[in-house]
């Protein structure tokens, strides 16, 4: 009986591999229907165990017309800044440049560089400085922005930024190994981004 159970469990996994991109999925189910039916046939007296699917909130389906608001989840490792907040637009600092995300944006995964994230809601604009991270835009106008470190611009100290920029410029010019050069370059990139965030 245990061997059959492992065979039954294998079937839903095979079905998952055949799916196309995860950003294109229709509404996700809350319980694995085939697993539950198969369980009931073999072990009718016990309740089927809950699979991870039933613990997750289902992904809202991609609506047929473009929604009017973009739903943003902005998370950090230690806090959730914005959780399913409905906004008009966000501008993220992608490695390919400032990217504006409006409702109905095509599904995209973008890597972020150190820069300013601005959240536009009506006429309010909230700006955060992000150290680096990723943004996942789903077809149903949900955007997940994940960053390692982010803070509002007024928490940044301009004199420390200038000092850091000078330090790293000096470090880059005196660097010998590739790794030191890379670290120097990273320092310069981050501090110049901080600088333009404070002045821009």
């Amino acid at each position, binding site marked *: 009986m245990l061997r059959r159970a492992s065979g039954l469990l294998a079937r839903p996994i095979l079905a998952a591999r055949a799916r196309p991109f995860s950003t294109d999925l229709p509404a996700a189910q809350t319980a694995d229907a085939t697993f539950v039916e198969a369980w009931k046939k073999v072990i009718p007296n016990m309740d089927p165990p809950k699979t991870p699917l039933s613990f997750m909130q289902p992904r809202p389906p991609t609506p047929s017309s473009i929604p009017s608001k973009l739903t943003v989840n902005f998370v950090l490792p230690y806090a959730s800044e914005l959780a399913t907040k409905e906004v008009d637009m966000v501008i993220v600092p992608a490695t390919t440049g400032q990217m504006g995300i409006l409702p109905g944006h095509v599904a995209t995964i973008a890597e972020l560089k150190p820069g300013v994230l601005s959240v536009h809601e009506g006429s309010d604009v909230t700006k955060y400085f992000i150290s*680096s991270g990723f943004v996942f835009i789903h077809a149903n106008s949900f955007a997940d922005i994940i960053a390692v*470190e982010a803070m509002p611009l007024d928490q*940044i100290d301009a004199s420390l930024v200038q000092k*850091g920029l000078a330090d790293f410029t000096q470090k880059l010019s005196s660097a010998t190994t*590739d790794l030191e050069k890379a670290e120097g370059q*990273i320092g310069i990139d981050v501090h110049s981004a901080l600088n333009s965030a404070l002045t821009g």
Partner: protein
Amino acid sequence: MASNAAVPFWRTAGMTYITYSNICANLVRNCLKEPYKTEALSREKVHFSISKWTNGKPEKPTIRSDSSEE
């Protein structure tokens, strides 16, 4: 498979993305204003005990409290 995008400079220098991302985060944290800076530094402290194993037995554990400086 040919390289599709230009390889970032830190990758050619042998650094992984996680190292790059952590370095960026540390640099940004060091540029914070005072009350936020101490909170951020305490947030990233790790405190753990290490014991080396030799001949299948653990030696006496040592306790380390690292903050996020490299």
